[in-house]
């Protein structure tokens, strides 16, 4: 037995949508009880109204100052995104994260900021980090991903995962209905079937097949 990946093209998902209903509708007749429904974390966040226009954010002095230090291709390079990170994690944790990042630089290690300030901050997509029409928004990570995957399993009968995948072959499973689903999703989503541009395939069925 092996696993195959079936990406499903959806409409442009907005805050008007309910992610559990979408999972049911688009995977109907395809995903069975032994299969896994994988959902891209950014669309879960969008349906939770966590896509925020920068105009709606008032960056404080701390955000304006601190956004100068992260990598410019990273997620917290604009004052708006840094302000939202401060609101999510609190200024003390952000400052501790900065101190850890500074220490990491001294010893030549990356990733200390998120280790201390919080993994959820790594899920923030800064302006232009998501496909049209959400390129004007800052997208925060999804809330309560465990609850969402459980609801998808109840509604569809299939296992479910929420994943953050990029084109650099990094797969981060935010929540899964079982450890086995998490392991299989981590292996099978490595080529980023969600796409990184206009693909519109934020739902993927990972299906068990005979080799």
């Amino acid at each position, binding site marked *: 037995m092996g696993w195959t990946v079936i990406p499903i093209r959806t409409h442009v998902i907005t805050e008007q949508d309910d992610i559990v209903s979408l999972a049911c509708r688009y995977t109907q007749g395809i995903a069975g009880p032994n299969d896994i429904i994988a959902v891209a974390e950014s669309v879960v966040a969008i349906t939770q109204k966590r896509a925020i226009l920068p105009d709606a954010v008032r960056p404080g002095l701390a955000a304006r100052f601190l956004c100068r230090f992260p990598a410019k291709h990273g997620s917290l390079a604009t004052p708006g995104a840094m302000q939202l990170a401060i609101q999510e994690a609190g200024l003390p944790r952000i400052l501790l994260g900065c101190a850890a990042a500074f220490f990491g630089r001294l010893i030549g290690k990356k990733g200390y900021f998120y280790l201390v300030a919080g993994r959820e901050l790594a899920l923030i997509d800064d*302006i232009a980090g998501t496909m049209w029409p959400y390129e004007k928004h800052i997208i925060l990570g999804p809330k309560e991903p465990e609850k969402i995957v459980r609801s998808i399993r109840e509604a569809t009968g299939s296992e479910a995962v929420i994943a953050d995948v990029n084109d650099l072959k990094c797969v981060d499973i935010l929540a899964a209905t079982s450890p086995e689903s998490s392991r299989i999703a981590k292996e099978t989503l490595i080529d980023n079937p969600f796409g990184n541009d206009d*693909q519109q395939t934020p739902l993927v069925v990972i299906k068990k097949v005979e080799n």
Partner: protein
Amino acid sequence: MKGQEIARLTNIWSTYQQDEQQLSRVIIESTRPLTFQLRRVNQVVAFTIYNAIPNMYCDTLAIYDGLINEITVQPEEGNRVTIYIALNHNAPCTVTRLNGLPARTFLCFSRAHLDALFAGRRIVIDPGHGGRDPGGRGPVDLLEKNVVLTMAKKLKAELAKVKAQVWLTREGDQYLTPSERLKLAKEMRAHVFISLHTNYSKDSRIGGLVVNYNPAHHAGLRLARLTCEELVRKIKRNVLEIKAAKELSGLGPIPGFKIKPVTISNWVEEGLLRNPTFYEKIAIGVLNGLQKIFLSSPE
């Protein structure tokens, strides 16, 4: 037919390659191999699939890859789905299939007409600024002189695929005077001169694209509009301005354009310039514009 034999359509996408094969391809993914019929009405190919229902969303996909304009997926009564593929040229089509899960059906269209149109065309691309002149600066850190050089190299690569002869006024970070930039176009007797820049505004909320044209060319405005239209289709930015640029009149009768696809001072548009696929879209948008220009003025 038994219910379980129905094919479920899951995904449709398009890609192109301009190597020895020169193909635009539409790929349809489904849970079973498809039964289909192919018809053609002028430049529209209708691909009707029988005993199939769409699980995927059915809408119109804007492709504009130089051959395929749009793909429309239309569910019909009686478990039928028709996919209409609108082309800009009456290109031959072949269908191949790959079984498996998902099963893939490939509709392949020849792009050979692009070679015929572009072969022998001399195009000079001028990446603006350079050296001691950085041009505009984005709110985070990008510099105009660097991003326009990346744009120019990407555009050169796309034009080389369709056999155009292409020169860049600069290949690295060097300063050139305005007359040095125009000189190459005149020396090469270029069919078109394209100067790449980004727009800049003190107001970081302003975003969009600007196209300037050589007022000394008799159809400058019309050709600039064609270029702008094609670029907008690919990069989905607002048009701020289409305007004559006096500095291009030194080109004389050569059609010349200064294209500013985005406003670098805008937070969102600077962010878009960090995405490599955005440069690809700009290059294809300009290539589509040139295609229209060459079709509308053969010499």
